[in-house]
Every structure is written in C-alpha cells, then in structure tokens.
C-alpha cells in the first residue's frame, strides 16, 4: 500500500514538475537518429579545414608554417629575450597561461585566450579589433607590455636570425630591406614617443620595407596556427560511439551526470545558442554582464574593436593584404554602429574549457562553477554614463536552474577536454627544448 502511495506520489510529482524529471539511466543514454544528427554538428571531426584566407598567400604553405612555428617559440623576439608567443600561449596549457592578466614585459589588460581553433574566427582578440590572424599576431610583438620590441627591431632581428628561411619564402631580402645603419631604434608607429619619432624619420620606402617584413612574420605565424588541430575529446568519441551504436563504449566515455549536462547545455540552459558548432562558438560578440574588471577604465568590447579596425593599417583592405577588395567583404560591410556593440565580447570556444581557467576576458571568474552561477543569475552590465556611449546591451536571461543542474553542466564541460597530443609536431608538449632559444 505504502509502495503504491509512493509511486502515485512520484507520478504526480513527475507530472507537476517536468523540469525536475529525473532521467532513468537507460533513457538518459537513448538518443534518436535526429538527436545524433544534431549532436554530430558539434563533433570536432566535422570542423573541416580553416576558411580560405585570400589576404594571406602563405596561409596554407607548410614552409611558412614551419617558419611561423619557429617565430612562435622564439624568446629572442622580445625586449628582455624572455617573451615568446608561447610565453602566454603555452602548449602544455592548451595555449593559455592560466592567468587573468598575462605577464609579458608588463601586464596585459585582458587574458590570453587559447589559439586552438582560432583560425576559424573571422575576428581576432576579445573585442575583434583585427580581421585576420596575421594582423593579430603582430600586435603583441610591438606592444610595450607584451614583447616590447619596436617594429624596426623585429624586422631586423627576423632577417638576422632566419636569413635563409625568410629569403626562401619571401624572396631576396637585400634589396627589400632598409639600410639598417640609417635606422634609429626603436622605431615603430606604435609604442613610445621615441619609437614614433624614429619611425617618422624614416622615408616611406623604408617604412614600407619594414612593414613588409613585419607582415610576412604575421603571415607565417598565421600559417603555423592554421596547422593546429584538436585531438577528439571524450564528447567527440561519445558522438562517434552513438553513431556506431556502441552503447557500452558511449557509456564509458561520458557519465550520466555529463549526459544530463549535455542535454541541459543544448536545451534548457541555452548554452548552445552561442556556443555551437564543433568549436562551441558562434564567433560573435555578446555582452553577458560579466563584472567589469576595471570600473575606472571600462571594457567597451566590440564597440572599441570596431573603431580600432576602421583605423587599422593591416586589414584585409590594406596594401599588405593579398586579397582583392572584393574578397574583403567583412571589412567593407563592417557594422560600426548599434547598441549591441557596447561591451560585447567575442564568444570563446568551450573546447578544453575545464583545463583553461580563469574565465572571461579579464579572468573575472576562477572556476566554471562561478561562471555557471553567473549565467544562472546574471547581473546586468556595469554602466557609467561618462564612459559608455550608451547603456550596454545585456544578452542573457537568468536560467534559474537548480544547483544539481549546474553541476551536471560543469561535468559536461569536462568532456570537451582533448587529451594533450603526444607526437604532434605543431603542438609540442613534452619537448621543452623548443621553448628555449630557437637555433
């Protein structure tokens, strides 16, 4: 009798509380063909090759990628000979550094995002202030707080350290480089006042020659980053197992909590609305009301990014791009106005997210739990009339999920961590030698 009453009660509860309906384990792992087709679109195996890059003729050149890799790990390309790209994008940490603010020569304003999958993004940096990976790669090089060298120094050093590789790829260098004896260092259109004065003292031909070498560095770094691929994560194996109807294997790859999390992620929690596709990102800009890292100097996000893009010297439309104007439509039809730009930050990939804390553009959250708590009860964006051009857009709604739901989603996110590769020449994990001075 009691049993019956309990089962009736359960039935009533099930009817009354569909949101808290507890999945029986067998049901939990039951996915229909339509489910599997839908989920397959998140499988890393469906990522395809990086988008065409008409603005970089060396984008898919393997020698350029080799050269780019050498540059990526070369600490000599910094003011104190200690900072390489890999200093903040560490292969062992999925090309992040685990810091809220990266440490180069100084400290950066925002955190270093992973570069895995970045070749698929039309916009670079958290605010999308660059429209190509080659243009992006150059900015930290001459940023006083990152590599801290001037453009002229970088160009000179690259020719000095890599004369053969450079000339093999980009042709004769003698006629195309300035007479270095005539150049006062540092010289750069960005950076210190001295650097700027010295840059302005150079004639246009010399500036152009230096820019050519500099942008070729960027194009090689881009070619390298396009070579990076992600090994399948448990989630990808799970989808493949489902497709092959290997239920036992599927169950080994993802726990019931992770499956509940997966179902929430795609459905009730709405995460997949922006975190979709094999990289779990739509490559767009949103304001999710993350606490302002510095209320004295607010992050205007995409609003600022767009303004910087319009003045950028190395866009797809610039003379250093290899694309025709017609191939630069993202720049030609750049959206420059709209309240949704204010404070909007690029949706990051969720691949390896559990292994790449802290979170958000300035490491505002240390743990995934904090991130999920924020989404569950988001605070509206900070607004300061003096600093913001308009009230920031607010792109998320409270989820009002239960604690256990959030834990399940967190568990699911762990299934997106790929194993570190053992013998991927482009992603050297154990070979510490490579992070030393490159020969």
């Amino acid at each position, binding site marked *: 009798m009691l049993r019956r009453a309990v089962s009736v009660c359960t039935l009533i509860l099930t009817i009354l509380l569909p949101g808290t309906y507890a999945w029986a384990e067998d049901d939990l792992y039951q996915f229909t063909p339509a489910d599997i087709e*839908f989920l397959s679109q998140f499988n890393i195996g469906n990522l395809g090759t990086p988008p065409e890059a008409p603005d970089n003729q060396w984008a898919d050149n393997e020698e350029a990628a080799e050269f780019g890799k050498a540059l990526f790990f070369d600490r000599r390309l910094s003011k104190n000979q200690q900072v390489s790209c890999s200093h903040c994008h560490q292969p062992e940490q999925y090309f992040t550094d685990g810091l809220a603010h990266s440490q180069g020569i100084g400290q950066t304003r925002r955190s270093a995002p992973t570069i895995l999958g970045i070749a698929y993004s039309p916009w670079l940096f958290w605010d999308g202030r660059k429209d190509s990976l080659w243009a992006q790669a150059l900015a930290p090089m001459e940023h006083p707080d990152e590599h801290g060298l001037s453009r002229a120094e970088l160009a000179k050093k690259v020719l000095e350290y890599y004369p053969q590789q450079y000339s093999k790829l980009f042709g004769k260098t003698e006629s195309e480089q300035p007479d270095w004896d005539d150049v006062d260092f540092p010289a750069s259109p960005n950076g210190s006042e001295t650097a700027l004065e010295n840059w302005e003292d150079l004639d246009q031909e010399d500036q152009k020659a230096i820019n050519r070498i500099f942008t070729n560095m960027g194009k090689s770094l881009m070619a390298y980053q396009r070579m990076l691929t992600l090994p399948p994560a448990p989630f990808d194996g799970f989808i493949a197992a489902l497709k092959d109807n290997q239920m036992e294997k599927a169950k080994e790859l993802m726990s019931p909590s992770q499956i509940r999390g997966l179902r929430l992620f795609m459905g009730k929690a709405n995460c997949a*609305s922006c975190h979709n596709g094999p990289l779990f990102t739509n490559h767009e800009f949103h304001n999710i009301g993350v606490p302002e890292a510095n209320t004295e100097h607010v992050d205007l996000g995409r609003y600022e990014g767009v303004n910087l893009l319009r003045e950028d010297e190395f866009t797809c439309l610039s003379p250093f791009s290899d694309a025709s104007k017609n191939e630069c439509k993202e720049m030609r039809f750049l959206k420059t106005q709209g309240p949704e730009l204010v404070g909007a930050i690029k949706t990051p990939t969720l691949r390896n997210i559990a292994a790449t804390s802290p979170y958000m553009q300035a490491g505002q959250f240390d743990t995934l739990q904090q991130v999920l708590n924020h989404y569950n009860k988001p605070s509206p964006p900070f607004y300061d009339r003096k600093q913001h051009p308009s009230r920031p857009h607010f792109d998320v709604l409270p989820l009002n999920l239960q604690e256990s739901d959030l834990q399940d989603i967190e568990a699911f996110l762990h299934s997106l961590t790929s194993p570190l590769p053992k013998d991927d020449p482009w992603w050297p994990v154990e070979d510490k030698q490579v992070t030393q001075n490159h020969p």
Partner: protein
Amino acid sequence: MNYGLIAINSISRLSNRRGNLSRLWLLASLVLATISAPATVLAAPTASGEDHHHHSDKTPPPPTKGSLLMQNASNVWQQAVALEDQSGEAIKHATMLRKEVSNLRSKVRKLKASKNTGDMEKLLQETITQLASQVTPWQALAGNLRAEADKLKGESQQIMKQGFISIWQPWIKHEGKLALSSMSGETMAMAHNVQVRSMSPSVPNPTMEKMKQDDGESMSINRMAMSGQSIPPGLETSSFKVSRNQDIFGHIEAIPDDNTKPGELPLNEIHQWYLILSDTDGQPIHDAKVRVEGHMPGHVHGLPTQPEIVEEVSPGVYRVDGIKFQMSGWWVMQFLVNHQDEEDSITFNLVL
C-alpha cells in the same frame, strides 16, 4: 441635477447616431459587396494591354502590360486602405458607444443613490441596453472590414508581382518568400537567447517558453526554439511590398551563387540581393538613395554587418551587398528610400 434632461439628451444623441449608424451600415455593406470582385474587374484591362502593344503606331504609346498591372495593384491597394480607414472609424464608433454606456451606467448608480428614481432610471436602463447591444456588431463590422482590407492587400501584392515579373523579367528568378538555403544546415541554425529590456515585460520569453515543449521532431534532446521569437501569426513575408507612404512598390531578390538556388539565403555568409523599386505606375524609381537596415524584433539586435547599395544595375534595380544573417528566426529588412527629396521606406519580413 436634472436627470430628465440627461435621459432626453442621451436619447436624442442616440437617435442622431442611429441615423449615422444606418448610413455607415449601408456604406459598409456596399463596400463589402463591391470588393469581392475587384481583382477580376481590375485585371481585365491587363489582358488587352499586350494586344495593344503590337499594333500601336499612333501616339501616345499605350501603357505596357506591366505598368497597367502595377496601376491595378495600386488601385486595389487604395481600396484596401479605404477599407482600413472605415474599419478604424467603426472601431472608434464602437468605443464611443462603450464609453457612453459606462457613462450612463454611472449616472444610473448616482440616480439610485439619490432614491429619486422612477421612470427616469427605467428610461436610462433602456437606453443603455439599446446602446450596449450595438457595440458587438460594430466591432464585428470593423473586424470584417479589416479582414477584407487584408485580403485586398494580398490581391494587390499578387497583381504587383505579375507587374514586376512583366517589367523586370530578367532580374526576377524567384517569386515566393525567401528561405535559408538547405546548405546552411537547418539544425545548426540556432536562435540565441538575446531578448532583453527593450522588449515589453508583458511579452513572455519566447525562447524559454518554447523549450518546455519544443523537442523537435523525434528528438529526445530539448533544443532551444529555433524560431520561437513571438512571430505574429500570419506575418506577411512576401518579397513584394508597398512602401510606408504607399508611393513605391518594391521587390527583393536574393542573387544566387554557387551554393544557393534562387530564393535561398545562406546562413552566416555575406551575400547580395537585388532591390527593385517601382512607382505605383510601374515606372522604375531611378537614382534613389537607399539605406539598408535589418534587425530581429525578438532579439533587440541588428544585422552583424552594415549592408549597402553598391550599384543601380538597371533603372530601378539596385544591387545590395554585405547582407549576412547569423541566425534563423524573424528578421525585418527595411530600405529607407530617398527619391527626389521624398523620404519613404519599404519593409520586408523574413522568417528564416
């Protein structure tokens, strides 16, 4: 207070209105009787339009079939607008009646309180009953008139479409509504939950609401609603539209590329359209300055790009470049047209 006078006033107003009412009723039924035919009646000259074309050596040259069709479309549209106006009048009238009823009711209450009732209350009650009984018929009339107006607008758009096809045949490859290309992968075309403060608080959150039910066909995963963005039922999604000031007819045509067929739009890819603009006589709107705006009403955000008119490829045919949709759902595309110093706009709804 003289309640006798109030009652008499009400009755006299009522009787006046009755006169008006019957006149309006008569007009309305007349309109309703005539509008059922107009499409056929008005389409008649078009059939002969082509015939004239061949043996017309004498001046002035006869109007082309296309421009006759456009004129017809314009006439039908004007009728629809007239009906809408009448519908508005009928609604106003119904509202007035309701106000009068409530006004009289409050007077009856006061009359009761003064205990000096008698015939006066009865008279007022009768008046109230009479007036109240007319509210619903007037509302129904307004509804019918509006429905007829909508029907006529649909017919006008059909005729306009024929006119466009006749005049701009080489440019028009697709007459139906625009939809996402199958290459875009419908299942991947996700809505996102951007839907915030500028939306009225009384509007329920469509994304969340749909999620409770919308499992998708034979799916066990709850997916967020792809298009549950409070799209009004019966939303007009024609690619042939009349401008706000009703001076311009417009048509949008997606220019197909290697991956899309006519009428298909790619997701997340910059692509081009033709915008064809005509005046209501079927003459191309030449040399207009056109600004392009697009947004998602359910999401409070615009297009991810800023499209522009890049050239007028033929009189009245404008090439729009830079259009990109980053998600499925209800999009509104608006073209702000400045022609000979007249500002007008033409708006298309797309459900992708």
